[in-house]
């Protein structure tokens, strides 16, 4: 932007005013884009770190249904490390990206029997078991290790709000249904059911970071 405003004060031939304006605008656009890319790269670098839960949170008891129609409860994950994500299948931008990260985590932990994956929908009336099954197929989910859960909406929202995410009270357009903050994050739960860390599910580095976090937690004992 500064380059554009300096150019603007330079004298220019009157007949070329229009051409000049076009060039100035183009320069402004290029400068703007450049700084935008730079800022974005910087931001991405800064954000490469774990996010702590806003308060101590634990995986609470629940009873929900997976994409194969099976009942799933808290007890199914006793003693396991978990990677947890949040979605609704009508979500066309963020949710597919985060689900790709989950698929990578699934592949990276394929030989670790103490690791499970969990995805919770916020829109269960739409996301019935068959709809979640289709979503799982799209991302090559091994639904024995990676459980996509639906069920009673109140229970799902309670579970997400109690065990994982704070809720926001801002404009309802700005957050995923349920007004949860940070729905693009992937949560790591330790083998005792404590929610330990979140990672940005939109970042390509996150699957490796999640695996490293689980390896670190495994040594804790």
């Amino acid at each position, binding site marked *: 932007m500064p380059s554009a405003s300096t150019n603007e004060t330079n004298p220019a031939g009157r007949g070329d005013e229009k051409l000049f304006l076009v060039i100035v605008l183009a320069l402004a656009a290029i400068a703007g884009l450049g700084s935008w890319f730079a800022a974005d790269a910087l931001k991405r670098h800064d954000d490469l770190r774990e996010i702590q839960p806003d308060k101590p949170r634990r995986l609470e008891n629940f009873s929900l249904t997976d994409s194969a129609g099976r009942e799933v409860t808290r007890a199914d994950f006793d003693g396991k490390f978990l990677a947890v994500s949040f979605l*609704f299948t*009508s*979500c*066309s*931008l*963020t*949710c597919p990206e985060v689900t790709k990260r989950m698929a990578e985590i699934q592949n990276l932990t394929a030989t670790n029997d103490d690791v499970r994956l969990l995805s919770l929908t*916020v*829109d269960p*009336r*739409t996301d019935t078991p068959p709809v979640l099954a289709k979503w799982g197929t799209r991302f090559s989910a091994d639904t024995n290790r990676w459980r996509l859960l639906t069920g009673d*909406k109140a229970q799902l*929202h309670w579970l997400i709000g109690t065990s994982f995410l704070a*809720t926001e*009270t*801002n*404009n*309802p*357009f*700005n*957050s*995923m*249904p*349920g*007004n949860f903050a940070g729905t693009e994050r992937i949560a790591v739960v330790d083998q005792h059911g404590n929610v330990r860390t979140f990672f940005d599910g939109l970042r390509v580095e996150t699957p490796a970071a999640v695996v490293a976090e689980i390896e670190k937690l495994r040594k804790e004992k």
Partner: protein
Amino acid sequence: MKTLILLCGLLLTVPGCKPAVSTPPAAAATNQTFSVRGIIQQLSPDHRHVTIKHEKIPGYMAAMTMDFSVRDTNALAGFAPGDEITFALVVTGDDDWIENLQRTGKTGGVSGPPGWRAVEPELSVGDPLPDYEFTSENGRPVNFSDFHGRAVAFTFFFTSCPLPEYCPRMNRNFAEARNVLLADPNAPANWQLLSISFDSAFDQPLILASYAGIYRGTNADRWLFAVASTNTLASLAPKVDLNFWRESGSISHNLRTVVLDGNGKIFRQFDGNDWTPEQLADAIRAAAKTNAP
């Protein structure tokens, strides 16, 4: 579709392509002035535009958040987001602007009321749906209650919705259901279709009217396009399990289509896009039999 979006974008950049164009023909020759109350949300750096969350403008527009322009850039000097103001909205045949801004107070912030969506319970078939007000494609307020005694089928969309199996599918199904009913000599006449946009920032009445033409042709019989304010959606959406999220400049949303009977009670709900125009027409026929007492 892309051409339409581009056209809409161009139209928006032209002053006067806001609701002013859709004022009644009687008002076209003279200036109309409306006294309005609102809260400043945002000021453009050049002080030519201001985003105001305004109250209902009786006889002209529902309460909504929208951009206004000023003719005198000094008019916005000293104002800041959060200021409660009164102002005059001047509407001519081909332009509109605001003037005489007066600060009446200051809000704590520009955010909406707390507890936006979770507070409203989901309704079931047989439950009465409260009345809601929208801004119609002709720039005037429209309410569910305007259609009392008629079966009302409504669905949600936004004009720049890019996914063919989402919003366009809903409006195509509405078009076909309307054809079915209009062509059937035995069908009831007391019904109404309403396509409601999520996007009060972009889907101004003129945009809605132009978009409606794609699906409706020149015959507007019993099918109205309208836009819901964020406040309206915050209350209506949870009642019909409508979910939406503005992400990366677009709006992700699920699909909810509802048929109300003549008394405004929920008669049938169609989730997703896996339903046919014939099913909708059948539901409207049945719902229309439940007349107002």
